């Protein structure tokens, strides 16, 4: 298996007034080439620190990692030569125009002078900013600056793109355009790493995700596998809607094997069971004279996944006890 990113025991400790803080705590990570990887977690979880280390902008205090086969400590410049990075909290030079800013970035990337204009024009087109290329950045909205940030990451036609909070400050239209861009990049065979705390935005785009909290991965793996795992752990949720005596139907449901919980909510009966019992539910509905209009298996969302593991992590370490072992919930 070829990996775009491989990290083993990657650690970053900061010294603070209260002692040492582990911003990133012995992380193991693999991201397959050509995949879209989502790094999810609340603010301050360690996402940005991890990205800073992977791009050679911050030195690890422990462990090792390779990005596109380059060592993050010894070959960081080679990494940044081949990786398009959108850092969190970046800024452009406000006194320069969009085009001038990108020309400077192109020069820093050693793109030959004769190719710069075309290169800049292409990436401006990719993010829809051609019409404002001659405007100074001082007059740009936050969303426009964010799009320009994405443009600069695309500049060197990189094999791997790392976006840290890419949709921060971007309007819904811009967010949708960004998602389309990620899909396009994925189709082109690029590896994309998205870091965000907004799960609903990147969830559907990702092949694999890792949820990070307090510097550690609380769960990591393929999105479908993780959802299946959560369903097995939390129970299958079935939503039944229809016309008839739903009260009698609900009482009958309690006698079905594997049913754990029944709730009536907004004209629907919500059933939680330890297996997929939709066939049995359908049969019971006919028996009770209920005309079924909806019989859905409700899959847990990435957000459910996040909330579950975030809660577990929070409960396991109520006093921020970094030494506690969390292997029981870490996958991979």
């Amino acid at each position, binding site marked *: 298996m070829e990996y775009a990113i491989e990290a083993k025991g990657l650690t970053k400790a900061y010294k603070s007034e209260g002692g040492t803080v582990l911003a990133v705590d012995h992380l193991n990570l693999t991201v397959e080439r050509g995949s879209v990887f989502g790094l999810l977690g609340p603010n301050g979880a360690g996402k940005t620190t991890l990205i800073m280390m992977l791009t050679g902008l911050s030195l690890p205090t422990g462990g090792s990692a390779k990005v596109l086969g380059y060592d993050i400590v010894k070959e960081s410049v080679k990494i940044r030569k081949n990786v398009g990075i*959108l*850092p969190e909290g*970046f800024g*452009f*030079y406000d006194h320069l125009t969009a085009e001038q800013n990108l020309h400077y*970035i192109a020069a*820093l990337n*050693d793109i030959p002078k004769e190719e710069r204009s075309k290169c800049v024009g292409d990436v401006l087109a990719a993010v829809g900013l051609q019409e404002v290329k001659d405007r100074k950045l001082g007059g740009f909205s936050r969303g426009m600056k964010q799009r320009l940030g994405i443009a600069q990451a695309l500049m060197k036609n990189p094999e791997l793109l790392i976006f840290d909070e890419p949709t921060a400050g971007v309007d819904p239209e811009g967010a949708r355009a960004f998602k389309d861009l990620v899909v396009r990049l994925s189709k082109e065979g690029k590896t994309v790493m998205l870091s965000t705390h907004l799960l609903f935005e990147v969830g559907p785009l990702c092949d694999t995700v890792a949820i990070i909290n307090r510097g550690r991965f609380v769960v990591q793996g393929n999105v479908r596998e993780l959802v299946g795992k959560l369903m097995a752990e939390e129970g299958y949720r079935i939503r039944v809607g229809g016309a008839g005596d739903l009260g009698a139907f609900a009482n009958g449901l309690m006698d079905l094997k594997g049913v754990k919980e029944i709730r009536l909510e907004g004209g629907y009966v919500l059933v939680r069971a330890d297996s997929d019992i939709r066939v049995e539910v359908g049969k019971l509905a006919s028996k009770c004279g209920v005309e079924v209009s909806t019989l859905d298996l409700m899959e847990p969302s990435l957000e459910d996944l996040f909330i579950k593991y975030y809660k577990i992590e929070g409960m396991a370490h109520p006093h921020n006890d970094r030494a506690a072992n969390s292997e029981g919930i870490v996958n991979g």
Partner: protein
Amino acid sequence: MVSMFTVASKEFSDIVKSKRFLLLVAVFGLVMVAAVATVYLSATEGTRGASMPRGFLGSVASSLVTMMSYFAPIMGIALGVDAISGEKEKGTLKLTLAQPIFRDTIINGKFLAAFLAISLATFIASLVNIGGSVLALGVTPTVEDVTRLMLFMLFSILFAMAFYGIATFLSTISKRTTQSVIVSVVLWIVFTFIISIVASLVASSMVPISFQPGQNMTIFRPGQNMTGNPEEIARLTEQFRSRTAITEAIESITPNYHFTRIARYILQISVNIGISPGGGVGGVGQTTTRAVSIMESLGSAWPNILVLTLVTVLTFIASYMLFTRQEIR
């Protein structure tokens, strides 16, 4: 690999187009014009162009040194004070560092750009002063005058770079530009005004000048000898010499002191009214007017040149080491 010239080229363009730089050059240009007017007025007391007892340099040096002793540090501080902290605050440093460059490329590029911008500003300011003085006095400077003025400009640039180094160092260690601005300005005030006052106070408290009752002496009138009891003159000479040594020892912690010394040697003038170094042959209060060659001037000024160079180099190294190891969050 991207060279520091890419960064330097952009930085230099930013500096020379910035309102801050243009305003400083304009203000000091005007101040230089005012200084030229002063030179003109003092010269017209004699016959214009014909009688220059102190020579061209002697006429323009005083105003040039005074102006430059304010201009150079302010220019250095203005350019260095947000060199790193400003980029951190705006987030531009994060974006620049996300590109395939080494950190030292950034700081080297910034130093080179600052050096070029300071050289340009110093050249403009000096040109206004010297050119204006030539026109006002109607005197053509000699080759030696021009050489000495060029050397003076070079050391003015070094002086400005010393302050640029200090300001950049403060900018590197500060989290916010306001912090580095406050500390830099306070440091400039201390170096320019406070230290000399403190030095005088310390010297006068350590070596009080005591006069014998009944003695009638004239002291400290430049160009004249002291008159009075020879023993008393020797005692006072020693006291003044001790005071000067203490004052200079305290003032020598500032780059300003070393710049003034260099300027005095290079331009052959004494900017401080007081006892001439070493007392002179004629005794206390007499100024030395003996002409010295450029090499002799450089020979006398080299310890001060060395100190200014060290301040510049050491602050650059300190900024460099800090910046290349700093966590950018």
